[in-house]
């Protein structure tokens, strides 16, 4: 017995991105959801499945007026939304619900209606990391990179090229936060945040949101937009403590979630027209390319520096400008999937020619988790 296919039939971001001081975090979820409703012609009454992270699915469902028969509150960082897609796929295939709404909203910059995070002193992080002075992602997510540089000969210039290339993509995107071209020198001359990371190698901090609506393939003809089929998915988690990752040069969660999603989809590397790799910091696309198997680990930095992922390159990657130049609210995974869906629909600002297959790899925490979704223009 073959399971039914599932597709994204609605996809939208918040009306604005960047600085949105006039909206609470919960309203950012709703603004994106309402835009996704408009994209499909549905209303809250048509939705029977809700998944979200950052806020609770209870809060989002009640605020929007949804009466769900299926919820998923998996919250493992910025890739939670990829994992929601994976869980929604299973739920839709098995008839647990018919129409799933996945929302993200985050007042990352303005902090309106946003809860504070903080580790308890009795947690393992509180006992074995916090005393040593890490101050959030710029000093934690970045910790493995000097080891990668030594093991694989990656240079500071190659790391900087990740930011340079993504700015080239952002220049084509009117909604990108930063669009002016930058050079390797600009990156290396920008303020040092945490050696070896300069300001321009760290993601933005912005406000925004996004929402996806998924249903089974038999219904795609009922919707005005081209469907983006879910061809394959993967998920995994490794450790909440970056100091305890098994290999400082590889994400175990990437290497499980990514290849699993591609295998499920039945696609090989040569089939992939478009790639998104969650880029909270400049090293993430390098780790992602290697963990997905697009190149050898020692070649990944050069692969980007030589222009293979840039406009005109053979593997267009992070074509919205990424977390480094487009936007990054804190849990960026939703925006990476929005770009994959735009590319599959053929409506992206920097549209890839004849985009049939898009792979979207997300990270959660500091290499703590991963979710991956392979989108397709045609069903499997």
């Amino acid at each position, binding site marked *: 017995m073959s399971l039914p296919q599932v597709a994204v039939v609605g996809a939208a971001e918040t009306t604005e991105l960047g600085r949105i001081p006039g909206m609470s975090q919960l309203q950012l979820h709703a603004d994106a959801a309402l835009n996704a409703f408009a994209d499909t012609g549905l209303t809250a009454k048509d939705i029977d499945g809700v998944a979200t992270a950052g806020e609770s699915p209870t809060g989002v469902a009640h605020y929007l007026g949804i009466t769900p028969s299926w919820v998923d509150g998996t919250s493992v960082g910025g890739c939670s939304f990829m994992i929601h897609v994976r869980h929604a796929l299973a739920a839709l295939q098995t008839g647990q619900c018919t129409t799933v709404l996945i929302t993200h909203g985050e007042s990352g910059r303005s902090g309106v209606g946003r809860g504070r995070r903080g580790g308890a002193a*009795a947690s393992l992080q509180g006992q074995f990391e916090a005393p040593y002075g*890490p101050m959030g992602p710029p*000093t934690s997510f970045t*910790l493995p990179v000097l080891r990668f540089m030594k093991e694989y000969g990656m240079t500071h210039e190659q790391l900087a090229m990740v930011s340079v290339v993504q700015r080239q993509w952002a220049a084509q995107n009117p909604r990108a936060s930063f669009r002016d071209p930058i050079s390797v020198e600009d990156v290396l001359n920008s303020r040092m945040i945490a*050696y070896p990371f300069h300001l321009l190698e760290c993601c933005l901090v912005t406000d925004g949101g996004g929402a996806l609506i998924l249903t089974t393939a038999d219904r795609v003809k009922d919707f005005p937009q081209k469907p983006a089929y879910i061809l394959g998915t993967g998920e995994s988690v490794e450790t909440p403590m970056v*100091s305890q990752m098994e290999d*400082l040069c590889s994400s175990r969660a990437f290497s499980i979630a990514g290849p699993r999603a591609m295998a499920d989809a039945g696609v090989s590397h040569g089939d992939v027209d478009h790639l998104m790799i969650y880029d909270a910091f400049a090293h993430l696309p390098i780790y992602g390319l290697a963990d997905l198997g697009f190149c050898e680990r020692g070649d990944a930095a050069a692969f980007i520096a030589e222009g293979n992922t840039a406009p005109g390159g053979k593997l267009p990657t992070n074509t919205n400008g990424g977390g480094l130049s487009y936007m990054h609210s804190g849990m960026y995974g939703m925006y990476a999937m929005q770009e994959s869906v735009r590319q599959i629909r053929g409506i992206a600002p920097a549209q890839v020619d004849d985009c049939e297959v898009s792979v979207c790899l997300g990270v959660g925490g500091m290499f703590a988790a991963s979710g991956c979704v392979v989108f397709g223009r045609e069903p499997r």
Partner: protein
Amino acid sequence: MSRPIPAPTPETAHFWEGTRQGELRLQRCDDCSHVYFPPRPFCPSCSSRSVTVFTASGRGVLASYVINERPHPAFEGPYAIALVDLEEGPRMMSNIVECDQTPQALQLDMALEVTFETLSDEIALPLFRPASGGDS
């Protein structure tokens, strides 16, 4: 302001008792010999509950680090947040003391040895300094 002070739990109490006595304590599985950190009363490799606390050598090497340039109330000026690969296998986060906090002074794979900083009556924090010689 001082560093964030750890709050021990029943599972980690032996570790912090050790640091108060100037010992870095790890755990070894009685069944599969796996040595691990952070502390827990079972083996994360084979799930055995039969594990033994032992005192580690305190020696390790610098695995990776960043030098934080943003001000932190517990630190003066830029400081390295380091990952130390212990001789017995596990890795831990720490700071490198008695050493310039520069890329020139902080060389990956340099030999390190543990030292302890007293934060409170209960907590002595393990830190690392360049090894005094002979075991690099």
